Structures are given as structure tokens and as C-alpha cells.
């Protein structure tokens, strides 16, 4: 049985607690790094949602989990707005597969 975790600045994620997801407010990079490692290695969480702002700082770490089946680390926009990092991630996987972004490149 897996749970779903949400990591990010408190303002961006506190609403998810009401839905029954587990929220982990994080303020700086080091805490985020430690927390992500702990959550991903623990095997308790199947999906970890992370705000784009925090993900920006933990890029290398997130890259590591890309090839594993679980956990899925998914970027979500924070309260301060959409940075486009999530869309960029989708485009990147197209680029990885095809060699160049043929689907969304023109947009």
C-alpha cells in the first residue's frame, strides 16, 4: 500500500492535506534534498508531487529517479505561478525518444 506525498513551500501545498495526501513543507534546498531522498528511498510513497520552484533546485536528484518504476516524481505548479518546467519535462522526454522535439516544438 503506497501513499502520495507532496513537497514544496507551505503556501503551495497546504491544501493537499485536506484531500488526504501527505504534505511535507520545505523551505530551503538542503531540507528538500534530504526529504526527497528519505521519501524516495523509504518505499512508502508511490507518487511524489513536487512544486516546480523546489524541483528547479533538485534537478539532479529528480533525474536519478526517472528510470525507476516507483516513485513517480511529478512537477506541479506552486502558488507563485507556473514556470513551465512541467511542460518542459514532457518536451524533454519527446526529445530523448525521437531525437528532436517534433510534437510540441512549434508551440
Amino acid at each position, binding site marked *: 500500500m503506497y501513499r502520495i506525498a507532496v513537497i514544496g513551500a507551505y503556501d503551495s501545498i497546504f491544501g493537499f*492535506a485536506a484531500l488526504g495526501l501527505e504534505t511535507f513543507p520545505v523551505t530551503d534546498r538542503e531540507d528538500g534534498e534530504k526529504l526527497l531522498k528519505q521519501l524516495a528511498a523509504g518505499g512508502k510513497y*508511490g*507518487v511524489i508531487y513536487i512544486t516546480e520552484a523546489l524541483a528547479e533546485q533538485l534537478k539532479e536528484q529528480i533525474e536519478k529517479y526517472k528510470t525507476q518504476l516507483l516513485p*513517480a516524481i*511529478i512537477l506541479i505548479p506552486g502558488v507563485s505561478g507556473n514556470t513551465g518546467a512541467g*511542460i518542459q519535462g514532457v518536451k524533454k*522526454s519527446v526529445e*530523448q525518444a525521437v531525437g528532436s522535439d517534433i510534437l510540441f516544438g512549434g508551440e
Partner: protein
Amino acid sequence: MAQTQVNPTRMELTRLKKKLVTAVRGHKLLKDKRDELMRQFMDLVKANMELREKVEKGILSANQNFVIARASMTAEAMHTALLAPKQEVYLEPDHKNVMSVDIPVFDYRTRTPDDNDIYSYGFAFTSSDLDDAVKSLADILPDMIRLAEYEKSCQLMAAEIEKTRRRVNALEHVIIPETRKNIKYITMKLDENERSTQIRLMKVKDMMLEEAHGYGKKEY
């Protein structure tokens, strides 16, 4: 000329011929795998993009609702209201095999089946804006979980496609041409050896005939 040193022997030739057959067959299979993976990936990634746009829009509007809710309540009251959630979401991950790539399938279950359990507070001390905000977030949750499934699948498939593509290219542009070249080199070399043996035998025959009958001695 062959770059690597090959022994121009019949045994080596048989080995290389077998290798070529395997390589050609492997190339065809991998190419088929790549094409099929690519077809499925394209469908998946399009759905992924649509879902992502939808989810991002949903979260954005939910966040706006939360900001409005926050404006009409104190931070403490808000914090207390959401402190002890009633509802819990459990994820039941399964996986499915698409062209030998394991991709996840997420199924989720809530602790209680009651939709209203997302409101973890009494309605007396909170504004109705908070109810709206929580509701808008709850509406987007199924899509968020589907997004997680799709996005992870896309990432895994992209990695597999990249690997397969490299293998196809390596076979097509390096291994197969090189083996063909080596086979040609060995055939030529063997033919050359055969001709040289034949010439030597003819020469020996000439010499033996000369010795036995003295042909050609008259000219001297």
C-alpha cells in the same frame, strides 16, 4: 580493408556468416520494436501533454481559491482547519508490460468512500471560500494521479526508445557493414589462395614433365 585483424580461414568465414544472419535478424526485430514503441509513445505523450495542461490549469485556479479563502480568514484558523485531515488517499500501483517496458498503472482508493470527508473542519469557523478551494483541488486529484501514471510511463518509454534506437543504429551502421566487409575480405583472400595454389601446381607439373622427358631442353 578490414580494420580489425581477421583470420582468412574457412572457419572464420562460417562464423562471420552466422554472425551476419543473427545481426540482420536482430536488426529487423529491434527496428520493429522501436517503431511500435514510438507509435505508442506518441499517443501517450500527447495524452500526457493534454493532462498536464489541464492539471496545471486546475491547480492554478485552486491556488487562487485558496488565496481568496486565506484573505477572509486568519492564518491560524486556516492552519487549524487543515491540521487534521479526515480523508486519506492510498495508491495501489500495478504495472503493465508494453513491448518489454514496465510502465506503472496507478489505482487509488480513499480511506472513506464519502466525498464530504475532504472537509476536515467544522463549518462554523471557516469561510465558504475554503470549502470551494478544497473542492476545486479534490476535483483535480483523479487527473493528477492519471498524470503521474502517464508522465512516468512516458519517461520510462523514452529511455527505452533511446536505448533501442542506439542499438538499431549500431547494428545498421557499424556491425552489419563491418561483418559484410570482413566476409568479402575473407572470400577474396581464400579465392586468391586457391588461385595461387593452382598456379603452383601447374608450375610443378611443368617442372616434373621437363625433368622426365626433357621438354624444352632442345632450345638451349
